[in-house]
């Protein structure tokens, strides 16, 4: 095939969008939009990397902080939520061998997350609304620095994403518990108890052991979804509070900031935010590792019952771990800093360590394995969390936090290595593995490009995190600007590694487009011709 033919119709013309079921199309739409927003986040990240070396003439300081505000939110909501929601809305019915409860509701989730992300990104881009994702009170309502109207649209965009998130939560739990038409009635309560781990918990204290009604990956998705629901609740509540101040200001009434206690606000908001960072991400990732390991090896998971228990512990840990973000807040009670901040946080080393160990042993038990793209990306994801979790445990120590808090160490070796290397490489592994299932057998355009994608992403992600961390150890703060080249050596090296990440993404994107073809990409967004609730076309 000529280059042009491949570009238009995909590798060997194997991808036929007309053959896709509505569920396949929906999942692929989530993935395409998620990857586009990942591209947004990478470009934003590169602008900031360059700005940290020398201020760019076409970006004002206000714009820089607007980018800094949008960057993590576009990355988490626009990209990760899209890819994860799309994957789980496909995988839960796939693993439970029954249709999704509502494709219509899933379409609403897709639209709301995609549009909501664009709304908050665009309002930040235009108005330079930039209180950062932490929204420390009363900064989001400081109208001497930020546009009220811009802020209002920003918060509304986030609210749209949260409504889409709540629809996702409903769809997941309804899919787990409902009885499809024509099926023998299923016990919804028993399914829910099994998914949440209550059956397994009861088995520990009962002689009559009950069987698990849902598989381990579904249990992981269910438990992570609980955190997703709580998180959406907290963000909506906080958004409404900020909107009250904004609407009042628009009507010419300035409400008093002191009506809200800044420390109490910081506690509830971090409790909610941490349900993402230390909750659903870790639980979803552990569940995805287990699923990938069993799919790659075709073997049963090592210590499966313990893995179920660890997921339950991780969920409880995620509800009680938030205080490690307030270790430098002197008004925060010392007991919370020690119990929640240090001790509970240390549990994450254990729960994530268990997931790491169980996955490695499952892979080991099936050797020799072929080093496929899903396997190498899975190993990259495992390495990412093996590097990032201990870095986080270190900064969650009262002594070390005094000299690490808000430095580049936090966002480098911990956040970016966890997200870019740990989480994103795990997601890439799932994408490479599920690509044939979701596309009815499309063939990857280039294995060499996929291998380049792997190495460039791995080295770029770890390298960028490392150089940011070195700057942090030398005192470089994470949310300010330096104008005299104080940290230029580290920032130039981090920028080069960031460039590698950008090139890796371009290689991956090009490979995907050449795999399915431009017509294939456009075809994903057209209405499916198959009137079926089946996940994949029946043979």
């Amino acid at each position, binding site marked *: 095939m000529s280059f042009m033919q491949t570009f238009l119709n995909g590798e060997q013309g194997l991808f036929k969008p007309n053959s896709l079921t509505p569920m396949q199309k929906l999942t692929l739409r989530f993935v395409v939009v998620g990857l586009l927003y990942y591209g947004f986040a990478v470009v934003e990240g590169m602008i900031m990397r360059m700005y940290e070396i020398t201020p760019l003439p076409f970006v004002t*300081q206000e714009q*820089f*902080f607007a980018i800094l505000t949008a960057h993590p939110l576009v990355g988490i909501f626009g990209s990760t939520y899209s890819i994860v929601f799309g994957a789980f809305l496909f995988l839960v019915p796939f693993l439970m061998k029954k249709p999704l409860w509502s494709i219509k509701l899933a379409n609403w989730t897709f639209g709301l997350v995609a549009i909501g992300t664009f709304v908050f990104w665009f309002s930040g881009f235009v108005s*330079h609304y*930039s*209180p950062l994702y932490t929204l*420390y009170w*009363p*900064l989001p309502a*400081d109208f001497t*620095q930020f546009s009220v109207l811009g802020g209002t649209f920003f918060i509304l965009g986030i609210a749209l994403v949260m409504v889409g998130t709540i629809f996702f939560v409903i769809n997941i739990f309804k899919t787990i518990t409902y009885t499809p038409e024509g099926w023998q009635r299923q016990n919804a309560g028993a399914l829910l108890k099994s998914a949440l781990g209550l059956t397994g918990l009861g088995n520990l204290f009962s002689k009559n052991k009950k069987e698990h009604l849902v598989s381990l990956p579904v249990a992981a998705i269910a438990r992570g979804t609980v955190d997703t629901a709580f998180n959406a609740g907290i963000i909506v509540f906080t958004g409404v509070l900020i909107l009250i101040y904004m609407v009042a200001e628009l009507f010419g009434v300035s409400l008093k*900031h*002191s009506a809200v*206690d*800044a*420390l109490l606000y910081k506690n509830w908001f971090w409790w909610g935010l941490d349900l993402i960072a230390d909750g659903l991400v870790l639980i979803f990732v552990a569940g995805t590792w287990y699923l990938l390991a069993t799919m790659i090896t075709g073997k049963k998971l*090592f*210590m499966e019952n313990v893995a179920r228990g660890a997921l339950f512990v991780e969920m409880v840990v995620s509800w009680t771990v938030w205080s490690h973000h*307030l270790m*430098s*807040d*002197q*008004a925060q009670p*010392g007991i919370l800093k*020690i119990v929640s901040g240090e*001790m509970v946080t*240390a*549990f994450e080393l*254990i729960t994530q*360590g268990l997931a790491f*160990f169980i996955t*490695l042993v499952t*892979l*080991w*038990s099936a*050797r*020799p*394995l072929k080093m496929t793209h899903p396997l190498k990306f899975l*190993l990259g994801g495992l390495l990412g969390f093996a*590097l990032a979790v*201990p*870095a986080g*445990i*270190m900064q969650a*120590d*009262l*002594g*070390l936090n*005094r*000299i690490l*808090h*808000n430095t580049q160490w936090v966002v480098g*070796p911990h956040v970016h290595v966890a997200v870019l290397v740990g989480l994103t490489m795990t997601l890439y592994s799932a994408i490479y593995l599920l690509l044939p299932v979701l596309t009815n057998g499309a063939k990857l355009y280039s294995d060499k490009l996929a291998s380049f994608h792997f190495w460039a992403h791995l080295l770029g992600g770890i390298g960028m995190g*490392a150089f940011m961390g070195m700057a942090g*150890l030398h*005192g470089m*703060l994470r949310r*300010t*600007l330096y104008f005299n080249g*104080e940290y230029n050596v580290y920032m130039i090296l981090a920028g080069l590694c960031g460039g590698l990440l950008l090139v890796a993404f371009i290689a991956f994107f090009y490979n995907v487009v050449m795999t399915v073809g431009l017509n294939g990409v456009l075809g994903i967004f057209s209405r499916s011709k198959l009137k079926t609730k089946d996940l994949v076309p029946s043979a």
Partner: protein
Amino acid sequence: MVDSNVVLAGQTIAYTCYVLAIMAVMGWFSFKITRDGNSKQFKPGLFYAFVAMLVVIGVSLHIVTHETIPWKPMDLNRAEIKADKEFNITVSDHKFTLPSEKLTIKKNAIVRFNVTSNDLTYGFGLFRKDNSMVFQMQVIPGHNNDILWQFDKPDVYSIRSTEYSGWKGINMIVRDAVEVTE
């Protein structure tokens, strides 16, 4: 009191050793799983030994730092510790207001910094001339924000806000504001 640079040097060495070790393990693992081998069943004992190791590491980190980083127990017990000198600092409208142009401290004196914000959430950090950090804390409006510190050698430090308070706050630096003398 041990200098924060010494603690950071120790952390750098420990974390670098760990990073090199885990990369080597993952590299070895990735190579070995593609080769034929004896795929005998893993014994649960090894798993539980690994769990025990994680518990020991998780707990011992905080015990070790409590015993070796002097500002950690001092911070936890700061309500009971009497300071040799106190400075009351206020922050509002993205500016630090100090009790005097230069805060002078005798070497080895225990000093308490009380920092109050009248509007936004800020940070309060001391930095050396090479921009490395001595310490920092958050400054929350409507609450007391205090920190105790003991300086063990003469030097001059700058104050800088370590928390983002909007784009207006990026120049919140008071150069050479703290001087420790013999």
